[in-house]
């Protein structure tokens, strides 16, 4: 990595300033809050963790990898389709270009999906109490405020982190959501390089996520589903290991794929 590599990363990030990408990011970031405001008045929540869970339990849960890939891979999808890379490799080292492009997309996607989880966290744990905590009533569940706090530690996967502090939970969980989105973008990026059908390549992360989630549910082990690994809502608490293991398997596939890509980069048809 040198100055020109970082310049390539920067140029890649600047391409995010396209209006349709910005519009899509704004929609992604606003979906949890719009989803929550649409239905909170007819619901009783134990505490602010319930509020947070209801926010993130949005339609994006189902199409999470598709949203991540759209945010992170759209520009590269166009470059591969336009044979832009064929021109670039005459001027720039192709390994530097692809690694800078990959790094920039993964980092930017991480940032967007960190905010996707962190903004609702701030809204539900700090802004909502300032508004008087409408619809939050632990007595409906036969609990006091203190009992609800204790219960929250055992309610959801990752919610045990609340024992280390509310901010710790918010930051770590948002970082987890960002990291998982980044892994799906990395997988989509690799698929765009390895597969000739670009549309199918963009759909690969979603297909893996969706089919694995359905299979885990049908087999009676939803705790290993990729969907519950990142959005553990609607399921009782399991050890974080159950969430991390299947996602780590996707990461392993990514790593193996990228090792293969770097070894054969000069010969790959999509990059020539």
């Amino acid at each position, binding site marked *: 990595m040198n100055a020109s590599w970082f310049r390539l990363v920067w140029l890649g990030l600047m391409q995010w300033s396209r209006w349709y990408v910005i519009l899509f990011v704004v929609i992604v970031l606003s979906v949890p809050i719009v989803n929550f405001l649409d239905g909170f008045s007819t619901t*009783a929540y134990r505490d602010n963790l319930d509020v947070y869970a209801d926010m993130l339990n949005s339609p994006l849960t189902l199409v999470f990898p598709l949203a991540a890939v759209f945010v992170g891979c759209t520009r590269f999808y166009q470059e591969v389709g336009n044979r832009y890379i064929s021109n670039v490799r005459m001027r720039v080292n192709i390994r530097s270009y692809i690694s800078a492009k990959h790094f920039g997309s993964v980092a930017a996607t991480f940032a967007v999906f960190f905010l996707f989880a962190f903004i609702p966290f701030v809204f539900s744990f700090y802004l909502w109490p300032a508004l008087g905590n409408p619809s939050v009533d632990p007595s*409906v*569940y036969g609990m006091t405020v203190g009992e609800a706090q204790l219960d929250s530690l055992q309610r959801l996967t990752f919610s045990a982190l609340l024992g280390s502090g509310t901010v710790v939970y918010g930051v770590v969980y948002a970082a987890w959501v960002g990291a998982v989105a980044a892994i799906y973008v990395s997988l989509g990026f690799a698929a765009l390089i390895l597969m000739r059908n670009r549309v199918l390549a963009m759909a690969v992360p979603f297909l893996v996520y969706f089919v694995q989630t359905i299979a885990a549910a049908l087999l009676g082990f939803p705790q290993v589903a990729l969907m519950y690994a990142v959005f553990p809502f*609607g399921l009782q608490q399991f050890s974080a290991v159950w969430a991390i293991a299947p996602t780590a398997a996707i990461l392993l596939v990514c790593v193996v794929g990228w090792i293969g890509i770097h070894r054969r980069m000069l010969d790959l048809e999509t990059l020539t």
Partner: protein
Amino acid sequence: MKTKSKIVLSIVLGGIMVSAGGAAYAGTSYQGFNETTPSLQQPRTFGNQTKAGSGVAGGIIVDSVGSNYTVNAKLRTGNTFGTEVKGLGDSSSASLPNSIGAGSTTQMTLTNNTWTTVTVQIVGSWRSN
């Protein structure tokens, strides 16, 4: 009337009374259920209890939810719904706030989480109060 006929008549009348009591369950006592909720938050509505007090909160006790999912619950009469309680797991309970009038035939509506892709068995009891 012969003694034998009286006994038969008593049994028949007793049976009718018991079955009539089953159809209109007293809303103040808990009624057991063992239901399977459809996938993707499709509601499962069941039971017929006569509401005893206007706007008095009902109650639900969940004994078990299949495959460690959680379930959401609310009371219903016609197209009027009570407040929904969410995320009930094994061995949990909640009251069910509502504004349903006394004497209304009240039902229980259970739903899975929005993105639960399979049917889920739920065992517990409820009352409309």
